[in-house]
C-alpha cells in the first residue's frame, strides 16, 4: 500500500466507499433532490402495491410494510447501542416489551390504571423505557463486553418472567383493545384499525424519519464521537478524557427509548399485548437485523430490518425456516463479511487517517474499520 495515499483502506470497502464519497460530494440541494422523491415513494408504497414487491395474497401488503417499518425503527434504536457504542445488547426485546406494556396499561380497558389518549402514551412509553435503560445500564455497563451480553439476555428474560408473575400485567391473557390514534373514516369507523395497515405504516415511517434525524444529529455531535471512541477502544477513550460510563449509559438510554417507542407502536397496531411476543428469539432476531445490515450504518441496519421482516412474509415458503436461515446467515456473514451488507460509516476514522497522513506523509497505521473487522495478526483467542 506504499504508493497509494488514499484516505480509505485498500480493497474490500472501496465499492461502498466510492458510492458514499459520491453521495457526500453532492450539494445539499442535490441530496434533497434525490431524497424527497425517494421519501414520497416510500410513503406511497402500500398504495402502489407494486406487483413484484407485494406480499399478497399470502399477507396483507400494508401490514407487511408496517412490520418492516417497525423493524427498521427497532434496528435504528439497537444500532445506537450495538453499532455506535459497540455494546452487545441481547435483551433489547425487554425495552420493546416495556414500551408495549406501557401502551397497554394506559389505554386498554383491561387495565385498572387511569386511561390516557394513545398519542400521549407514546412519549410516556419513551420516558418509562428510558428509566428502565438507566436501571439496567447503571449496574451492568461497567462489565466487559461478553458479560454484558449475558446480563442483558437475563434482563430481557426477566421482563418476560415478571409479566408472567405480576398479576397486574395479566400474563398470558394479556390486554385487549389497546388504544390507537384518534381520527375516523367517512363511514364512522376508526382511522387506525387492525385491518388497514396504511395509516399505521405512515405513522411508523414518520417516526422512523424523525428518529433518523435525531439519531443522525446525535452521531455527528460530541456524543456520537464519544460512542465511536468507546467502540474502538474503551481504555484509550477513557484516557483521552471521554467519560465512558456516562456515554455508555446515554447510548443505552437512547436505544431503550427507541425500543420503547416501537413497542408502543406495535401494541397499538396489534391491539393486544400479552407475554408471548417478547422471548429471547425475538431479541436475537432484532440483533440479526442490525448485524446483517451492517452495524454502525443507519442505511445498513434498515436494509437488515427489511431483510429480516420482509423476506419471510414475501416468500412464505421460507417462513417456517426463517430462524434457521437467519442463524446460518449470521454465521456465514461473520466469516466472509463481518461488517455486514453495508459497512459502518467511518468519517471519524477517515478524518483521523487524513490527519495522520498530513502529519507523517505516509498512509494510515490506524487499524480496524469497526469492532467487527479483523485486525491482522491479532487473534481473539489469544
Amino acid at each position, binding site marked *: 500500500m506504499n504508493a497509494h495515499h488514499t484516505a480509505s483502506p485498500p480493497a474490500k470497502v472501496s465499492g461502498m466507499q466510492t458510492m458514499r464519497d459520491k453521495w457526500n460530494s453532492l450539494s445539499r440541494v442535490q441530496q434533497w433532490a434525490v431524497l424527497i422523491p425517494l421519501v414520497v415513494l416510500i410513503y406511497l408504497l402500500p398504495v402502489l402495491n407494486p406487483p413484484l414487491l407485494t406480499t399478497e395474497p399470502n399477507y396483507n401488503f400494508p401490514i407487511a410494510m408496517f412490520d418492516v417499518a417497525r423493524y427498521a425503527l427497532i434496528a435504528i434504536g439497537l444500532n445506537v447501542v450495538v453499532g455506535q457504542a459497540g455494546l452487545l445488547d441481547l435483551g433489547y426485546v425487554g425495552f420493546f416489551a416495556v414500551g408495549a406494556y406501557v401502551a397497554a396499561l394506559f389505554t386498554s380497558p383491561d387495565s385498572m390504571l387511569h386511561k390516557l389518549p394513545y398519542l400521549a402514551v407514546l412519549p410516556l412509553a419513551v420516558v418509562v423505557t428510558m428509566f428502565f435503560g438507566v436501571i439496567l445500564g447503571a449496574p451492568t455497563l461497567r462489565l466487559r*463486553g461478553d458479560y454484558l451480553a449475558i446480563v442483558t439476555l437475563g434482563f430481557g*428474560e426477566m421482563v418476560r418472567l415478571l409479566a408472567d408473575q*405480576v398479576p397486574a400485567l395479566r400474563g398470558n391473557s394479556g390486554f385487549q383493545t389497546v388504544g390507537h390514534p384518534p381520527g375516523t373514516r367517512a363511514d364512522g369507523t376508526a382511522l387506525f384499525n387492525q385491518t388497514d395497515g396504511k395509516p399505521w405504516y405512515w405513522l411508523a415511517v414518520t417516526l422512523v424519519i424523525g428518529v433518523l434525524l435525531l439519531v443522525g444529529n446525535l452521531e455527528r455531535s460530541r456524543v456520537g464521537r464519544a460512542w465511536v471512541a468507546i467502540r474502538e477502544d474503551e481504555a484509550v477513550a477513557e484516557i483521552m478524557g471521554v467519560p465512558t460510563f456516562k456515554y455508555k449509559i446515554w447510548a443505552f438510554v437512547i436505544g431503550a427509548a427507541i425500543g420503547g417507542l416501537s413497542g408502543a407502536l406495535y401494541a397499538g397496531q396489534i391491539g393486544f399485548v400479552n407475554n408471548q411476543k417478547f422471548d429471547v428469539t425475538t431479541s436475537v432476531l432484532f440483533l440479526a437485523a442490525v448485524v446483517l445490515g451492517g452495524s454502525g450504518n443507519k442505511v445498513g441496519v434498515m436494509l437488515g430490518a427489511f431483510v429480516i421482516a420482509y423476506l419471510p412474509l414475501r416468500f412464505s415458503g421460507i417462513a417456517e425456516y426463517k430462524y434457521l436461515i437467519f442463524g446460518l446467515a449470521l454465521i456465514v456473514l461473520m466469516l466472509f463479511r463481518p461488517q455486514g451488507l453495508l459497512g459502518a460509516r467511518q468519517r471519524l476514522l477517515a478524518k483521523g487517517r487524513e490527519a495522520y497522513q498530513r502529519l507523517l506523509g505516509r498512509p494510515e497505521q490506524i487499524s480496524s474499520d469497526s469492532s467487527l473487522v479483523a485486525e491482522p495478526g491479532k487473534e481473539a483467542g489469544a
Partner: protein
Amino acid sequence: MNHVVTFLADGSDWINFDVGALRDQFWNDTIEGLSQGSIYALVALGYTLVYGVLRLINFAHSEVFIFGVFGAYFTFFGLGFRPGPTPELGAGELILYLALALIVAMLVSGATAVVVERVAYRPLRRRGAPPLVFLITAIGASFVLQQILFIWRGGNQERAIRLMRPQEVFTIFGASVTNLQIIIVLASIVLMLIANTFINRTRLGRGVRAVAQDPDTATLMGVNKERVIMLTFLIGGLLAGAAALFYLMKAPTGASYQGGFLLGIKAFTAAVLGGIGNLRGALLGGLILGIVENYGQSVFGGGWRDIVAFVLLVVVLMFRPTGILGESLGKARV
C-alpha cells in the same frame, strides 16, 4: 402514587416473603438444590473450559446440552420405552439402560460441541476475528442448532419417559433423600473428579492448561493448539451430555427444543459465580446456585425461581465479577 400501590397490590399474593417456609423446607431445599446444582455444575464446566482456553463464551453450549437430552430421550425410545407409566425394572437392567443412555448422550453432545467448534469457530480463528464476531457467530450457531431440533421434532414438548421413580432411601433432619438424587449427585461428582484429574494430571491436560495460560508460548513449546481447543470442546460436550441424561431423569417434563436456553444461562451463572475459567469454581458455583434458587423459591413463591437466578447473576457480576474462587484456568495450580 396511591394508584401505583393499589395497581401493584392487585391480585395480592403474587410475591411472598415467607421466611417460615424456608425454615420448614430448609433441608429439603438444600438436598434438592444439590442435585439440581450438580447438573448446573456439569454444564458450567463446559463454559468454563472453553472460556479458559479461548476467552469465549460459547453461547451454543446450551444447545450442545439439549442435543444430549434428545440423544438420551431417543435412546430410551430405541430401547422400547414409551411415555406413560414407569416400568418395573431390576437393578441390573436399570443400570445397563441408564449407562447406555449416558454413553449416547455424552457422545451426541461431545460430537455436537466438536462440530460447532470445527464449523463455526475455527474458520474465525484462522482469520483472527475480534471477540464480538465470535460472540455473534456463537449466537448464530445456537440459533441454528435449536432450529434443527425444531424442524425435526416440532414445537411441542416430548412427553417424558421414566425408567425409575424416585424412592426415599434415608432422611436427613426430616428431609427425604431419594435414590435419584443420590445417583445424580454421586455420578456428577465422579465425572467432575475425572475431568479435574484429566486436566491437572495428564499430559493432554497439561497442554490445555498451557494454552489457557499463554497460547503463543504453548505453541512454541510444541503444544498442538488446535488439538487442545478441540479437546476442550469435546470434554465440555461430554460433561454436558452427562448432565443431559440427569436432567431428563429429573425434569418433570420431557425434552423440548427450547429447553437448553434456561439451563444454559443458569449454568453460565454458575460458572461466573464460582469464577469463570476455574474448574472447582464451576462445581461450587453450580451447587450454590442450585441451593439458592430453591431457597428463593421457598421464600418468594413458585414462579420466582428463575428470577432469583438472574438477580444472583447480576449481583455477582456487580460486586465480584471474578467469582468466588477467582477467574482463569491458566492460573490454576500446576
